[in-house]
């Protein structure tokens, strides 16, 4: 059998797993691994400028491809810098393997230089973690790490490797396991046929149905199956923030995103529904508003790969269905085709009439309410972005008002097209995530929708973009304030802007972009917006930083009224639902 060092084993394991690209930052504890990396050519390494970005970039890569993202960081500060990235991936169930170095085994526990208890630090934010205790176990640990990361409900797995486990002088026999079997980990592969039947029976009884689809549909590659069943039934579909793209955004059956900043028609439809079909969604607090007042008349079918997501917050689930959404939905469609029952068409058309009424009255896509001649409205920036990119770009968002506008006004027709930190809400996610997306899709347009607050949290990555020629387009919605914080301060704190403004100290983003070798553009006039954006996307090989000065006073609406039900919303600065 072949003899390899631990460092070589790690690289070979990555090759065996089909990994083409990893994102990392070297340091003392991982130098042996880096030396092994240098001496092979199956895996390309992208040197980021901060470990947080290494994990976000791997995360963006994973979100856009469905493959496992991989990062490599050193011990101590390298590992703790990775923590925000790992937590981000954990909250959104993104498959990652994060390899962290640690001090040599004999120094562990002695407060050695650059030592940190990585296994302890990351415990609450990983799907699982491994501390490598012998060189011999590296192949099986790596195999398990990838298996756990991508199967069941995906998530990040940390492999912590003490430096002595990778020493080039210590060679051991290497054989990569072909399969993995763990008695303690057996995720469901199919749904229960009886429950599927019950779910269908309930769905077919519906008079006012809503399909509520979440990130699980995207992660489970089930968009096609979801669309098939939605089309077969003719029911309205709403997507969560994480589920955008699971059902085509430009389809008439799509009634918009739901939740805290969801569409009026989506939130109303949920509240009035008699049957809700929840697919790969987890009844998050940003969706349900007050769970006690959540959809009082609805009978609910809930499909989820994770049993713990079922009945966690909303308790009245009539038909729980544990399983991966793809095969479950496929089985449902097949069973439906064999059944001799159709949905109640009269009830359904009445229901659509009601929904269309809501749409006409308060729909965000109805009319031209956000086009202004005196200032640039953020909503209009997103709509222009949609037009200029023909609805086909990858949109990587940061966190805040711009994120909500990007969720509301770009119509995502494809799953994995919308990349954002939904669960953790990590500012600084957008740019590094976009790097991972761009490297995975070199021929596609990748836009970062961000604000002057978020972008400054990982702005050092503009340098990485230069090094590896990643021509992402940065759409900076500049309102010279932490917009979402300011919005809450307007609404709940009497307009006292505690620590949310910094207008006089913002950098000149155009010069900043130029300093990194990129193109910078400034846009202040609404009439120039479209032309400048076209110019931006025409520069195919360049990073372009569009610094767009938007109306600083704009708020995101609708906004659910805290402690209320789904249907209780603030609709504008002057209107709210009764």
């Amino acid at each position, binding site marked *: 059998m072949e003899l390899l060092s631990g460092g070589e084993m790690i690289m070979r394991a990555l090759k065996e797993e089909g990994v083409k690209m990893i994102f990392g930052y070297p340091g003392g504890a991982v130098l042996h691994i880096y030396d092994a990396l240098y001496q092979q050519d199956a895996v390309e390494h992208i040197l980021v400028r901060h470990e947080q970005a290494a994990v976000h970039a791997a995360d963006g890569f994973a979100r856009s491809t469905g493959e496992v993202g991989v990062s490599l960081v050193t011990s101590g500060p390298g590992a703790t810098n990775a923590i925000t990235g790992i937590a981000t991936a954990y909250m959104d169930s993104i498959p990652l393997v994060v390899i962290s170095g640690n001090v040599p085994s004999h120094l562990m526990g002695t407060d050695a230089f650059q030592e940190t208890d990585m296994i302890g630090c990351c*415990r*609450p934010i990983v799907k699982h973690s491994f501390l490598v*205790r012998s060189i011999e176990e590296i192949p099986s640990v790596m195999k398990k790490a990838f298996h756990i990361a991508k199967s069941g409900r995906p998530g990040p797995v940390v492999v912590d490797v003490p430096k002595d486990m990778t020493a080039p002088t210590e060679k051991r026999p290497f054989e990569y396991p072909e399969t993995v079997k763990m008695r*303690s980990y057996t995720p469901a592969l199919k749904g229960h046929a009886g429950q599927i039947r019950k779910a269908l029976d309930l769905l077919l009884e519906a008079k006012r149905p809503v399909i509520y689809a979440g990130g699980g549909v995207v992660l489970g590659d089930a968009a096609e199956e979801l669309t098939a069943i939605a089309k077969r039934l003719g029911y309205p579909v709403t997507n969560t923030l994480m589920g955008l793209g699971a059902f085509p955004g430009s389809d008439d059956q799509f009634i918009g995103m739901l939740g805290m900043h969801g569409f009026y028609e989506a939130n109303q439809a949920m509240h009035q529904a008699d049957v809700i079909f929840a697919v790969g969604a987890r009844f998050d607090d940003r969706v349900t508003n007050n769970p006690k007042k959540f959809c009082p008349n609805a009978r609910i079918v809930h499909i989820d790969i994770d*049993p713990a997501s079922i*009945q966690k917050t909303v308790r009245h689930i009539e038909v729980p269905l544990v399983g991966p959404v793809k095969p479950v939905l496929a089985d449902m469609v097949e069973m439906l085709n064999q059944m001799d029952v159709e949905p109640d068409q009269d009830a359904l058309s009445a229901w659509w009439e009601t929904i269309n009424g809501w749409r006409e009255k308060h729909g965000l896509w109805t009319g031209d309410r956000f086009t202004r001649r005196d200032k640039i409205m953020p909503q209009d920036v997103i709509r222009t972005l949609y037009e200029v990119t023909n609805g086909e770009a990858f949109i990587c968002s940061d966190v805040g008002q711009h994120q909500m506008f990007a969720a509301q006004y770009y119509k995502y027709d494809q799953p994995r097209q919308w990349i954002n930190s939904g669960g953790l809400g990590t500012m600084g996610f957008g740019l590094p995530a976009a790097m991972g997306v761009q490297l995975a899709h070199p021929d596609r347009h990748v836009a970062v929708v961000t604000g002057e607050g978020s972008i400054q949290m990982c702005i050092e990555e503009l340098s990485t973009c230069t090094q590896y020629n990643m021509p992402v387009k940065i759409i900076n919605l500049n309102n010279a304030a932490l917009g979402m914080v300011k919005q809450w301060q307007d609404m709940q704190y009497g307009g006292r802007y505690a620590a949310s403004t910094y207008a006089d100290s913002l950098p000149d983003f155009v010069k900043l972009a130029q300093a990194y070798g990129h193109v910078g553009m400034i846009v202040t006039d609404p009439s120039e917006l479209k032309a400048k954006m076209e110019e931006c996307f025409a520069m195919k090989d360049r990073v372009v930083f569009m610094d767009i000065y938007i109306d600083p006073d704009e708020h995101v609406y609708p906004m659910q009224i805290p402690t209320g039900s789904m249907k209780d919303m603030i609709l504008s600065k002057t209107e709210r639902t009764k």
Partner: protein
Amino acid sequence: MRHIISVLMENEPGALSRVVGLFSQRGYNIESLTVAPTEDSTLSRLTVTTIGDDTVIEQITKQLNKLIDVVKLVDLTEGEHIERELMLIKIKATGAQRAEVKRTCDIFRGQIVDVTPAMYTVQLTGTSDKLDAFIDAIGASAILEVVRSGVSGIARGERVLSV
């Protein structure tokens, strides 16, 4: 309501910290916790007693099951079961009190396992309630030290928790 949850898990370093961490992270309550390897040295059995309503207990069992190191678990309080806790207790025993402590100990079927002229060390097993009752009967002023093992439990009848 009080529940006794019995967990079979991989006897791996760090497995216990994942279980304990889960409870603190999600705000679940731990009344007592015991853990030791089983006859199969690759498996540990952990018993945790906790208090919570149905929603909380359902989440606890589901979240425990999600831990990769957890092989199987059972909520013993869902069925007939036996629960036992071991207590070692040092009690002042001088003068007339000495005979009284011995009598109380006999009533509770405890054993005196260590003796000095001034104290007894008593070993007592039983349900947690029984141990509580013994402590009450002795009275706080006579107690020098108490150590309790936490609850271990097993289902009655032929139901077994094994891989």
